[in-house]
């Protein structure tokens, strides 16, 4: 039976089900397939906070949202397609579906038990409890169909039921007119030593696909336009992955061994996990006893001449505060990554937030300015991390990278580089020239001190956290010297603004109606909001700040063209404090503190209210 084909610009699908339903795997497979197909895309996983939340409950719902098409900035505000494997997942997500959106329901997930677990009142038809009239609903008994398909295998019921996600995936592939081959290859790798399970999964995947063909369910299939991407090699990438790849690349290009030290914490742990798989690339990873040991051991490694890195999140970053002061005083290179999560305190460990900015900028005893950089998307993590390594080594300074949970676990296509195309590093280990007197705190024209690593003859010296004399490097409590050193260390950091790119407009120009200033993971949603606003005739400028300390030199120049300055942040207003202090402009905040990203309509509405 042939069906109508429609071509669309963008589609957002939300896969939802119990955390045991294999939602993340199905979502991940669809993402890879989509990327391969050439769509632009952005994803947002939503894990339950508990390791194994009780089956069937609202707390146990796992979600995976993907937005894909010809131009994509965010995982999508509302979704076009919602897959709900059980009652709880429908209850939790139904409000995210746009009007006339498509719902695919696994009817056996709506039995009495599931309804009770989802705390939905009893009724004859379970679906009476949902207001489905504005949606296109497809009820499929996926559980039953899967079991029927596998009834002649040796598998246990539990194993059979675990294949349900392949049915959904196959069906979705069919709807979007895709080949199932990428997933077959994946399954072959995953289950290469268990043929029974492999065959079952493939069989159900095909069943799902064929169900589309044979059933009367859909009256149309969709083609989603691929993105016109510039020439190059692409892959999908998560933010934490990109950080790891940047670190390994920086290690290779700088010819310094990579030493990574961390203590597990959500959502930074994956950096430790991934790097510990890179031992074949000369990477040392150290799971320290706590975050203090993590940063201190990294400081030790940096002293020894390694490219040293540590990462953490909220509470763990707080613990690194004292040692951050030390490494600042030592003037040793160090990369500190904060994958931010909802705070304060333990807060909302599995949710995203941008609320550690002021801590990064100001949160130390004494005058201790440290460069702070922030990537704007998963793939941008590569560039920002790589540049952070370059700056850390060139300027003998710690650099803080502020990522967040949304970037860390979100995926997007990435036009990845080859190693030879990456910029070279500029730093050197001090060697003594003939008859020179050595002082570890002697500085070059950029105020950068000598890096003399243990093992180098004749450069024996001791450094520490006490103030030191500018001339000799010895400990000094002299009043004038202290002031001089504070000013020099500040000047060194300020001077980095001469080595970072000038601030560019992401949208608009000095002639635009107003300007939006943003940083971190809000980049995508602001871009898509501005595009939407453009359709309504608004001309909005946007600068997205990747380098927060020091700021690019030309920001003041840019801001003077604007009367209306909006600063949207996923916090209670942090960057805006810096902007107002530095430039004395009446910037206006837009804040969302819900552990989740902005929706574009929130930005659009705010902009409209400011301009009308």
């Amino acid at each position, binding site marked *: 039976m042939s069906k109508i084909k429609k071509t669309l610009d963008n589609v957002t699908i939300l896969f939802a089900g119990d955390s045991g339903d294999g939602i993340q795997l199905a979502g991940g497979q669809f993402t890879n397939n989509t990327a391969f197909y050439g769509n632009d895309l952005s994803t947002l996983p939503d894990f339950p906070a508990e390791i194994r939340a009780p089956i069937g409950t609202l707390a146990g719902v796992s979600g995976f949202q993907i937005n894909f098409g010809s131009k994509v900035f965010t995982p999508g505000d509302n979704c076009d397609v919602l897959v709900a494997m059980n009652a709880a997942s429908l209850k939790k997500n139904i409000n995210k579906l746009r009007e006339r959106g498509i719902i695919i329901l696994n009817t056996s997930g709506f039995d009495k038990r599931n309804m009770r677990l989802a705390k939905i009142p009893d009724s004859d038809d379970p679906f009476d409890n949902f207001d489905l009239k504005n949606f296109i609903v497809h009820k499929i008994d996926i559980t039953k169909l899967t079991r029927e398909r596998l009834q002649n295998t040796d598998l246990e019921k539990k194993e059979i039921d675990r294949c349900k996600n392949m049915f959904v995936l196959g069906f979705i592939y069919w709807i979007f007119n895709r080949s199932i081959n990428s997933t077959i290859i994946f399954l072959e790798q995953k289950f290469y030593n268990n043929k029974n399970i492999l065959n079952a999964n493939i069989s159900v995947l095909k069943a799902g696909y064929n169900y589309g063909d044979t059933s009367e369910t859909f009256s149309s299939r969709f083609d989603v336009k691929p993105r016109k991407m510039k020439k190059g090699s692409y892959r999908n990438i998560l933010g934490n992955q990109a950080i790891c790849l940047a670190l390994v690349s920086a290690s290779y290009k700088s010819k310094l061994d990579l030493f990574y030290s961390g203590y597990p914490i959500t959502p930074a742990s994956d950096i430790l996990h991934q790097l510990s798989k890179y031992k074949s690339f000369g990477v040392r990873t150290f799971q320290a006893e706590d975050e203090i040991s993590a940063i201190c051991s990294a400081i030790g490694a940096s002293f020894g001449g390694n490219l040293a890195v540590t990462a953490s999140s909220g509470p763990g970053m707080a613990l690194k505060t004292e040692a951050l002061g030390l490494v600042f005083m030592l003037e040793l290179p160090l990369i500190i990554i904060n994958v931010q999560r909802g705070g304060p305190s333990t807060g909302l460990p599995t949710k995203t937030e941008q609320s550690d900015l002021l801590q990064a900028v100001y949160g130390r005893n004494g005058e201790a300015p440290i460069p702070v950089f922030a990537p704007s998307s998963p793939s941008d993590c590569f560039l920002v991390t790589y540049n952070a390594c370059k700056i850390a080594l060139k300027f003998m300074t710690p650099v803080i990278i502020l990522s967040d949970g949304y970037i860390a676990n979100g995926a997007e296509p990435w036009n990845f580089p080859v190693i030879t195309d990456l910029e070279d590093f500029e730093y050197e280990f001090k060697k003594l020239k003939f008859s020179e007197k050595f002082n570890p705190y002697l500085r070059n024209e950029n105020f950068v001190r000598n890096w003399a690593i*243990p093992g180098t003859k004749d450069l024996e010296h001791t450094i520490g956290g006490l103030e030191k004399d500018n001339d000799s490097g010895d400990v000094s409590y002299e009043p004038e010297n202290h002031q001089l050193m504070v000013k020099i260390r500040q000047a060194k950091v300020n001077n980095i603004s001469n080595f970072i790119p000038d601030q560019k407009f992401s949208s608009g120009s000095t002639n635009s109606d107003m300007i939006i200033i943003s940083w971190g993971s809000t980049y995508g949603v602001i871009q898509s909001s501005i595009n939407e606003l453009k359709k309504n005739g608004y001309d909005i400028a946007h600068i997205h700040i990747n380098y927060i300390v020091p700021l690019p030199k030309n920001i003041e120049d840019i801001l003077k063209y604007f009367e209306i300055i909006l600063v949207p942040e996923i916090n209670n207003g942090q960057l805006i404090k810096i902007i107002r202090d530095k430039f004395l402009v009446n910037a206006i905040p837009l804040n969302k503190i819900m552990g989740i990203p902005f929706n574009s309509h929130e930005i659009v509405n705010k902009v409209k209210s400011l301009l009308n």
Partner: protein
Amino acid sequence: MKNNNYNLKDFANDQEIKWCPGCGDYSILKQVQSILPNIGISKEKIVFISGIGCSSRFPYYMNTYGMHSIHGRATAVATGLKSSRPDLNVWVITGDGDSLSIGGNHLIHLLRRNLDLNILLFNNEIYGLTKGQYSPTSELGKTTKSTPLGSIDNPFNPISLSLGADASFIARAIDREPKHMRQILIEANNHRGTSLIEIYQNCNIFNDGAFSKFTNKDFKKNNSIYLENNKPLIFGDENDKGIKLDGIDPLIVDLNDKNISVEDLWIHDQKSIEKANILSRFSDINYNYSKFPRPFGIFFQKKRKCYEDEMLNQINFNFTEDDLNKLIAGDLSWNIK
């Protein structure tokens, strides 16, 4: 093994030493500077890492590499340095407050991980640098600036604690026995693995005489016992006392007693964790050993794998640029032309 024709002066520098006159730290500095010329390691490969405290100023006075880090964290800094630079000869300098109060956790973790480095724990049973508060090794009832009515914290027994943390080399020395200290320093340095030496150090300003029991000529021999491997436990003014093991219970015996022979005595065995545990409690008032002499020397030594070696074993540095390009590309990539 003499190397590079170093002598003591090569390890001293021109920094003014800022310890109080009479401080026990001077002796330790000197013993360390004395043994380094003979350990066969070039000066530029030697690194001293300290925390904060009077004792932790030590690296400033050494003509080697050094870091005066932050309070309690020298052990953590050293862990990162040694595991990433196994070629270096690393020494941790720490005080009783630095290592056992704020830094207790990093210390026990370093001991269990067993990196090949040496920890010199300057124990003066007081906080020197902050001018005289009690420390985790101060005795019960001690009156100090922060305990005007006497301390109520049961002190740590650093040797027992280290044994509990699986240290692979544990010894004790004292500032006033320089020769013995040098010997222990050399053995500690020869040991592959983390060597912990607790060094009694007199703070003549805030805790003068804390160890006079073990330094005063009149009674030091009765109060201390110097351990030698495979030798019987003998002590006393006239070397006239011995220690015997009655099953699991140690007894002090009089060697003048004709029924007692040296053959019956406890033979020190550095490899025995059981014996080391008992030895560590000698003179500990908590455990009916208060009459026993305080042991000096090597309590325990054990061969165990070193963390940095195991780390290195898992690592491969021989990859090509191509391997790295493949890693970046991942399993699933595509080209837009």
